[in-house]
């Protein structure tokens, strides 16, 4: 499973989105799709578990989680750093 599909699975379980995550494209705004700040915290913690990474403080911001593409790019940079 590629990173995008793992991220979609995490969003499905933790994102509390108002829309089906499969109908969203990678650049769709997740906050517009109903993700709350609290839900984005659960998404962050689930991403840390799934990818065995730690989000540093400077990445704990709204823009890191605004789309599937944004999350994938943050995850890529974190997994690259820990590789």
């Amino acid at each position: 499973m590629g990173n995008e599909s793992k991220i979609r699975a995490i969003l499905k379980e933790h994102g509390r989105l108002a829309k089906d995550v499969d109908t969203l494209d990678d650049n769709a705004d997740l906050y517009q799709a109903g993700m709350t700040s609290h839900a984005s915290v659960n998404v962050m913690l689930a991403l840390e578990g799934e990818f065995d990474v730690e989000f540093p403080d400077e990445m704990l911001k709204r823009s890191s989680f605004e789309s599937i593409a944004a999350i994938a790019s943050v995850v890529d940079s974190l997994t690259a750093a820990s590789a």
Partner: protein
Amino acid sequence: MPATAYDAEKFFRGLVDAGLIIPVGVPGIFGRNHVFEDVLDRFNKLVTDLAKNDGAEYFVYPPAIDRKVLEKVDYMDSFPDLAGTVFSFKGKELTARQLSEAIHNGESWEQYESMTDVVLNPAACYPVYPSFTGTVPREGKLVTMFNWVFRNEPSQEPTRMQSFRVREFVRCGTPDQVVEWRDMWLQRGLHLLESLGLPAHSEVASDPFFGKGGKMLAASQRQQKLKFEVTAPVISEEKPTALCSFNFHQEHFGEAFHIRTEDGEVANTACLGFGLERVVMALFQAHGFDPEKWRSEVHDKLWP
């Protein structure tokens, strides 16, 4: 001339030595004497005077609220470490004897108690929202309250109390109504504190959300400019103390308590609260521990 040159320990000692506060043994909890209370009452009255033509309904709620309110507003998602959940004894007499014995033997006795339906109120605005359920009138709603608040954050630092009073206002309506009202009060709050000789400033702020997720919530709150504080130096010049806090909750409480505007949209809410003990302490720090010696323009404003 600041009373104690912005030193938390000296300031606490100064308040105690002047008889203004009376320690009770637990950090963040203390008694207040009549002079302290007189300043607090007078400041609270100034706030009432400022808002007298606004048409706010006045309520006082007790320090304990329905536990369900805390659960509905996701408090435990954000501040599980600050909550004061009330536990009590519900067992039979034999167990009560065991409880008593454990206490007299200096053993732990928490296992004999269980959770009640109430919690100590952690935010002055919370108790009123259940009464807003339904459709608010076209002009929105405006209430003001005088409530005790509890936060589990014991500290020797005098402005960080576990139990304190807040003079609160809550506005409910459309986003425009709520934000316009918040902005109006931000200026009012600033001017009120300045008029009492306090070097007040307003700034974007965030709540002390729990844990690593909390850092994310705080960053998001700052980025969206949902919280402002009016601050003045009390125990530090570099890190002034928040005396008044302004929160724009957007649809958070409207959704939790099914509050709608006339056009059927989820209502928005905002609140502001003056931390009354903190304002009083800021005045003592700025003008000295004896109000009789405060300069006349400050004294006359509080005691006209």
